[in-house]
């Protein structure tokens, strides 16, 4: 399963829409769309740069979300900080449902809202949305096991403490271990950036990978088309070629 990430509105409206269409054509099974947050506390410097650029022009993100929905037909999962919506959550979720969003992923759910995470998961589900849960090596084993059962679509497992900084981690041993805890589909991401890491993750039992930072870096360097080619390459790896 290839989960491709794009920051909503990055690098600009036109290229963004080209990107999401291209990523789907290249074989992405699911698109993960990042909404500009107030404080991207668990994101790395690359994603942060993309947010910064978006913050210079994007004002009406709802309409861009609608356009995105119209542009592609794969499931759309919104990545957004719960912190930003906590006072207006039911309305927000209702509107996402209206727009045609399929799922929601809060990266801060198990960190800053750990004591009430079940309440929020139920809230998402009660609006007919999929609740995709984000986990990481710092989540205790019993909790990973527990949330893997209620996570919709798949369980997201981020191997690095922050996106896009290639801190050294042992991808294979991390995933081999978490695989035994998770019956759900397991998608690994959050800094899984080089081909070797990706292969290791798959060999260790991941059902899919989530890619984000590398696309943005590629866009920064060579533009949107080049990022789409990368997606094609990743698709190939997933298909075992």
């Amino acid at each position, binding site marked *: 399963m290839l989960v491709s990430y794009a920051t909503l509105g990055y690098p600009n409206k036109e290229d963004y829409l080209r990107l999401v269409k291209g990523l789907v054509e290249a074989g992405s099974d699911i698109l993960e769309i990042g909404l500009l947050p107030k404080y991207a506390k668990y994101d*790395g410097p690359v994603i942060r740069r993309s947010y910064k650029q978006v913050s210079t022009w994007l004002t009406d993100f709802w309409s861009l979300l609608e356009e995105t929905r119209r542009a592609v037909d794969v499931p759309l999962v919104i990545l957004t900080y719960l912190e930003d919506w906590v006072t207006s959550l039911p309305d927000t979720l209702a509107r996402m449902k209206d727009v045609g969003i399929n799922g929601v992923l809060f990266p801060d759910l198990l960190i800053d809202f750990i004591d009430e995470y079940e309440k929020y998961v139920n809230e998402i589900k009660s609006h007919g949305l999929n609740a995709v849960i984000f986990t*990481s*090596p710092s989540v205790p084993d019993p909790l990973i096991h527990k949330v893997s059962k209620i996570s919709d679509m798949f369980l997201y497992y981020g191997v690095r*403490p922050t996106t896009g900084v290639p*801190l050294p981690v*042992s991808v294979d041993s991390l995933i081999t271990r978490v695989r035994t805890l998770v019956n759900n589909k397991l998608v690994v991401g959050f800094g899984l950036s080089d081909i070797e890491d990706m292969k290791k993750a798959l060999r260790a039992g991941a059902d899919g990978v989530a890619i984000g930072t590398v696309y943005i870096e590629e866009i920064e360097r060579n533009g949107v088309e080049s990022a789409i080619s990368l997606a094609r390459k990743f698709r190939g790896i997933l298909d075992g070629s």
Partner: protein
Amino acid sequence: LPKPLPPPRDPPDAEFSRIDLLRKIMPSEVLRQQFTVERFVPIPKEVREAYINIGRPTPLVRARRLEEFLNTPAKIYFKYEGATPTGSHKINTALPQAYFSMKEGVDHLVTETGAGQWGTAVALSARMYGLNSTIFMVKVSYEQKPQRRTIMQLYGARVFASPTSHTEYGKKVLNENPNHPGSLGIAMSEAIEYALSNGYKYLVGSVLDVVVLHQSVIGLEAMKQLQELDEEPDVLVGCVGGGSNFGGFTFPFIGSKKGSKYIAVGSYEIPKFSKGAYNYDFPDSAGLLPLVKMITLGRDYVPPPIYSGGLRYHGAAPSLSMLIKEGIVDWREYNEKEIFEAAQIFLQTQGIVPAPESSHAIRAVIEEAREAKIKNEKKVIVFNLSGHGLLDLPNYESMMKRIGQD
């Protein structure tokens, strides 16, 4: 841990990523261990041999004379980390960090030191793997603790009195005040800058999980030693500066559900447990490292000049902070008079001069043992004597003059 540990993060207004900075200054195997959460991390053979060479396993000693003195039904054991050549637990993490650096082709290690325990451990570890080392020692300590400086130099380290003119940051500080006495924050900033600009590696002495991981050799050894003695521990006690000795000692017990009470002891003068907030904060005063969520008095907090230099720190390791917040680990805070009394009782019964830091743990042990006497409970109390105080004797002399009555 009962809950996910909040990850480190960059500050909102970051001009550069602190997390990315780590990658440049720390040995990568050390980072891998920091961020690879496995239940057990095997110790490489070479590090195991180095541990043996420095006298590991350290002894687990029954403090019989202390028990007799307190006339308590409780049994008291202590794990004696002062038995290592550098006199404290710090060497447990300095050695593997130096080893991984050597394996990665690094030839020069840099760190800062306040009281000197950490610098001493790094100096020796570097030399054991044939590496050079540079230690930025807080100037006031450099001048007041010449013996610490001497021992680092004997181990082959270069020791600078920070602030120095070897870094931009140091120069800036000296420019503002040529007689600046230095601080741990400044020394840390200088060490990181010096490592960065010279392509050396920076070693980190506490707070980070990887340090606690390396220190867990203390708890794992102690668990095995207690098993050999057929003892089941009830109460586990340690002092907390950044939390690495406490975490290294108690976490294996907590993880194996051995023991029913874990007591983290801090200083009354630096009331992080009683007055600190549980917040994201910088581990270093200069704000060069990523933010972590911990119990903290704020990175700008200026600790008073207590004798326990190792406890003069504004925060506590994120994992420990969470366990305290969750009520799994208890805490105590004692003032200098209380810990001086405890140190005296201990050294007059057991002979070992404890580090003032470790005397905080001793005070809590004495109180537990006295409570056991009142309740007539045969508890087994185990504490980590994280270091000896032979290089802290000038401090003890001042305490004797200021506090002591005998």
